[in-house]
């Protein structure tokens, strides 16, 4: 395998969990809900996916377990933040605490076990094509899911009636309610979709990225995913850009180190964060466009009045 392709594959693997979690959170935020518990849902997804795959021997059962676990945890957020109208920021942060603790409890007996890896796609002839074969036809299944999911979310939000309704709720839940839309139902579904995506991202970590369970293995990736939604100004295709920019700079700095440039590794390690800020500054200068895409009722609790 040539180095060009190999590096790009590494970037794709590093970016996929970010993309999966971010695209889910994007839908949540488009519905006007801010769930800061992505890290917690992701880590629960990772441990449940690993445990299920380990016990059943089938990584696909692991994937399903990860999705379900993330969605169930997000439901807890939903009950509090939606039904009880608690503060969303505090609830999301508490969810992260809970998720990290719970994942440690569940995973206690799975540490250090060799897990079941989700196999890469392998199509005879096509996968072996030079330059792009592996890139296009030989990656892990969740990579294709992440791209397809982004396309599907784009289509859903901007091409379907339900998607339009969801965006309307995010922009002004009061008007949406006045039009007879069941705001809470939409938001519950959106929150659970976000949880499922975060769980799937966690499954990618423990079944593809590094097929094992270690405590806290998300290592802050849920936070990065949250930041990427903002980076994307709530537009799905920009999430791909953000996730891959972040992944590329992360991998790039490791290569720069291996080449022995002698730049302090702390500076190199901070490049992905700095790069994200700089790029966001450059693209968010158009005030009109940003305001247009920001869900106006983000993080504001909604209680139907009568």
């Amino acid at each position: 395998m040539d180095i060009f392709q190999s590096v790009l594959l590494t970037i794709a693997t590093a970016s996929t969990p970010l993309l999966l979690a971010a695209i889910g959170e994007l839908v949540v935020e488009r519905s006007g809900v801010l769930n800061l518990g992505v890290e917690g849902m992701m880590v629960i997804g990772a441990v449940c996916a690993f445990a299920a795959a380990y016990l059943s021997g089938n990584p696909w059962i692991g994937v399903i377990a990860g999705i379900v676990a993330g969605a169930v945890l997000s439901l807890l957020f939903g009950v509090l933040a939606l039904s009880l109208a608690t503060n969303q920021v505090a609830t999301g942060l508490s969810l992260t605490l809970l998720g990290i603790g719970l994942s440690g409890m569940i995973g206690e007996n799975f540490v250090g076990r060799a897990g079941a890896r989700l196999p890469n796609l392998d199509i005879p002839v096509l996968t072996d094509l030079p330059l792009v074969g592996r890139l296009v036809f030989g990656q892990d299944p969740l990579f294709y899911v992440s791209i397809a999911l982004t396309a599907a979310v784009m289509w859903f939000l901007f091409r379907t009636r339900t998607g339009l309704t969801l965006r309307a709720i995010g922009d002004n839940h009061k008007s949406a309610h006045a039009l007879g839309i069941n705001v809470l139902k939409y938001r519950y579904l959106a929150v659970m979709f976000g949880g499922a995506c975060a769980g799937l991202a966690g499954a990618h970590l423990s079944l593809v990225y590094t097929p094992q369970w270690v405590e806290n293995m998300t290592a802050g990736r849920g936070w990065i995913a949250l930041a990427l939604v903002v980076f994307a100004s709530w537009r799905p295709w920009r999430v791909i850009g953000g996730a891959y920019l972040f992944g590329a700079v992360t991998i790039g700095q490791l290569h720069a180190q291996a080449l022995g440039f002698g730049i302090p590794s702390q500076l190199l390690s901070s490049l992905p964060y700095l790069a994200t800020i700089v790029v966001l500054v450059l693209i968010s200068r158009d005030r009109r466009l940003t305001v247009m895409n920001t869900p106006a009722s983000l993080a504001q609790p909604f209680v139907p009045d009568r």
Partner: protein
Amino acid sequence: MRIELIKRPQQSALFSAVSPLLALGLTVLAGFVIFSLLGKPPLEALYIYFVEPLSETWQLHELAIKAAPLIMIAVGLSVCYRSNNWNIGAEGQFILGGIAGSLIPILMPGFQNFLTLPLMLLFGFIGGAAMGAVPALLKTRFNTNEILTSLMLVYVAQLFLDWLARGVFRDPNGNNFPGSIRFPSAARLPEIIPSQGSAHLGIVLAVIAAAIVWVMMKYLLRGFEVKVLGGSPRAGRFAGFSSSRMVFFAFILSGGLAGLAGICEVSGAIGQLRETISPGYGFAAIIVAFLGRLNPLGAIAAGFVLALTYLGGEGAQMSLGISDKVARVYQGLLLFFVLGCDTLIHYRIRLVFGDPVKAQG
């Protein structure tokens, strides 16, 4: 079954007072269940969790040490969030405050007099404020979302501190391990009652900061401005308030207080600049700010509650072998109960059984 909220005509004074107690009751109940399921003596566990840390003087001091940074940061954040600015990067501002305040004892170890500490605290505030001003500047000048920039700068600050503590600020006699020299006593925040325990002045400063900010929010025009602009930027503009000036004010105040907390931690609790100076206080303080209902005085109570859960969890782990993961889960549940019970202040809760459509009709 579904939960229905009915808005009260006005805040319920009764539930403002009762809700924390209710949350406590639920937490105790949940604790009873969890600890019993784990096969641990539930009453003893609860005692260790909530009473023991308050029963010994030295533990009260430790509680104050743990609560001080949480309160100080949360006070600033509550103003910031009230003004509808989203500073998620207090952790980074805390770190930069710690670095800036440490410049004096590290670069000028000979400068030891009555000015040393006040200057360090001032530098700490300025350092945190400068770090906070970056997202504010990017937001007002380039319209860049402050959630992303403030969060990303946390990681940059952590790595910057790491670089300093392992490089230029490293103690030349420290065997090439990270960490600066230990500060001379003139650069150490004094302990309140040295004979009883190790709590330092940080907690006093935090409470003073809370009081000052509370007065500002309640009685000064600036506090009114925060609330108006936070509630509705449009209304604020009609009143002649500048929202971009408010962005700077909110970030400089919250960043500055986080920075002050940072230097208090370094100078009071740690005694040197290390490669890490915070176990996540900047993030935990966000929870504290909201638990305290975005009220500076509420932040004091909330800060102590959160600090208590850390100490209690540690005690339960040590005395009964309850793993720290269980403690973390329990902490999360406790926060959920407090948040959920606060709903009662503004709403009456009704459980609706049966077909939701009919119930609505």
